[in-house]
């Protein structure tokens, strides 16, 4: 059993196309009960049974935390990804029975903040849908800056503008609109917390500028769902169970371990939570660390690996579990 990820039996209650790339999915509990409560920023891991393969992808809950009759997620189609989003888009229909994890929040609001400054890029808007709903209900002070490629790909931009008017500011790449980040960050009142969710480049940019401008790291929150990167297949031995398994090109190390019948812990499947950390017993080859959890020193030491996103190239690899 993966830590904190007890399963929920759900049925797809609705599938709604949002724009050219994004589709929204609604889930209800099969037994008709209410779903567990969650707070803005939480995600669930959705299990996708695709023939022989089971994929597990994390998606932010975007519905209101005040209404747990259903969970809603929005999935951006990735035509060159590993197939999870395509499965959601092509195979998932209303009435389908699925399994999702309990909600986990690795991107929660710090409610001691005097103000919440939110920066979203593309599909990174989804956790903010729930967070803004939560804050609006509590009379919280927030401001959302949302960058998207074009107006038609501004997922829920219209909904947000309608709900929150000037508290939402939109930027369209095709019109050359850019967030004036330094000015924005330097004009925030003391006690503001910063939240950023979007592509890795955006998160890196915002974190760097915030640090340079004197934002203490405790006030900067970010969420990045890094999809596992494909790569050359490799073999791995698990010392505790004594199994030797092959990690396929499109498979993550974590997925291969799960497919071999071992049930390792995980929470985010995106290299940020630290839950899947594993000790390396021996290795002859090169690690491809893709996580944001281990320090650079730990990466260099070759003594630890995050199996949810990291890979290996070489002759042999033995992990503790």
């Amino acid at each position, binding site marked *: 059993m993966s830590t904190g990820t007890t399963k929920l039996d759900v049925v797809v209650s609705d599938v709604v196309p949002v724009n050219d790339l994004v589709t929204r999915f609604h889930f209800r509990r099969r037994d008709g009960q209410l779903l567990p409560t969650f707070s803005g920023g939480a995600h669930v891991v959705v299990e996708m049974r695709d023939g022989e393969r089971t994929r597990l992808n994390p998606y932010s809950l975007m519905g209101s935390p005040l209404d747990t009759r259903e969970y809603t997620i929005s999935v951006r189609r990735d035509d060159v990804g590993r197939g999870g989003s395509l499965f959601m888009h092509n195979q998932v229909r209303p009435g389908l029975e699925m399994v999702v994890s309990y909600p986990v929040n690795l991107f929660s609001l710090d409610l001691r903040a005097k103000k919440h400054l939110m920066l979203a890029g593309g599909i990174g808007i989804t956790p903010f849908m729930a967070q803004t709903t939560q804050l609006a209900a509590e009379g919280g002070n927030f401001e959302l800056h949302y960058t998207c490629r074009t107006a038609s790909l501004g997922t829920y931009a219209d909904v947000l503008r309608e709900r929150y008017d000037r508290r939402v500011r939109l930027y369209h790449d095709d019109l050359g609109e850019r967030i004036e980040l330094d000015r924005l960050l330097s004009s925030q009142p003391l006690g503001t917390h910063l939240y950023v969710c979007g592509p890795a480049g955006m998160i890196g940019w915002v974190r760097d500028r915030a*640090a340079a401008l*004197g934002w203490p790291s405790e006030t900067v929150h970010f969420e990045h769902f890094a999809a596992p990167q494909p790569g050359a297949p490799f073999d791995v031995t698990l010392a505790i169970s004594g199994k030797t398994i092959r990690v396929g090109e499109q498979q993550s190390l974590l997925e291969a371990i799960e497919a071999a019948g071992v049930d390792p812990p995980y929470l985010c499947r995106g290299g940020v939570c630290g839950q899947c950390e594993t000790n390396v017993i021996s290795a002859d080859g090169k690690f491809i660390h893709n996580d944001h959890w281990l320090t650079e020193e730990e990466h260099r030491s070759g003594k630890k690996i995050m199996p949810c996103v990291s890979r290996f190239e070489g002759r042999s690899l033995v992990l503790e579990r």
Partner: protein
Amino acid sequence: MAAKSIISRPVYGTLSPQLGRHHLFVADAEGARAISDMAAKAPAGFFTDAHIIYIAGSGSEANVVALEALGPAQFYQGPSFASALPRLKQTLTNAHMGLRVYLAGTEGLIGQAMQAALEAGIDHTSMLTEHRGSLARRMQCVHCKGITENVTTQPAACSHCGLLLLVRDHYSRRIAAFQGVCINAEDRSEIPPIEEAFP
């Protein structure tokens, strides 16, 4: 430096230059030396964005000269924390994210300045502190709620209600004081030996 005993007991560090747009220092006579020591490690031009609030107490003129020599954008010198408080509050009210706070000196000074910064929305973990000088404590009497400054003995008399108090390590960040609890509530005539505990 004060030892860590129970969880609410504050832990202090060493001032070090942070990235930021503005730097606010609050220090007393002992703490002024922590600022001078830090200045040795600071990049050139660091103090051009700095504001130093210096509480001289009965401190020496030498500190003032040393602090002014750092070339801070603003320098204020006041005789007591109370006299500096309006200025500190005003500075925090007008500040934006990018302001870094550095507090140095006795616990009473650090605690009270931190209290003002907390109210302004700065998390205590985001402030840099350095304890210098006396271990004297600011103590709140849990019975009459009066605050006695500069307590150096254990037990210590409450300067408001006169009860003899055991100065606990239990610290309240909200009121920036240690808790003092009556040590002889059963029999007031019982006076335990009074020792210099916080020199």
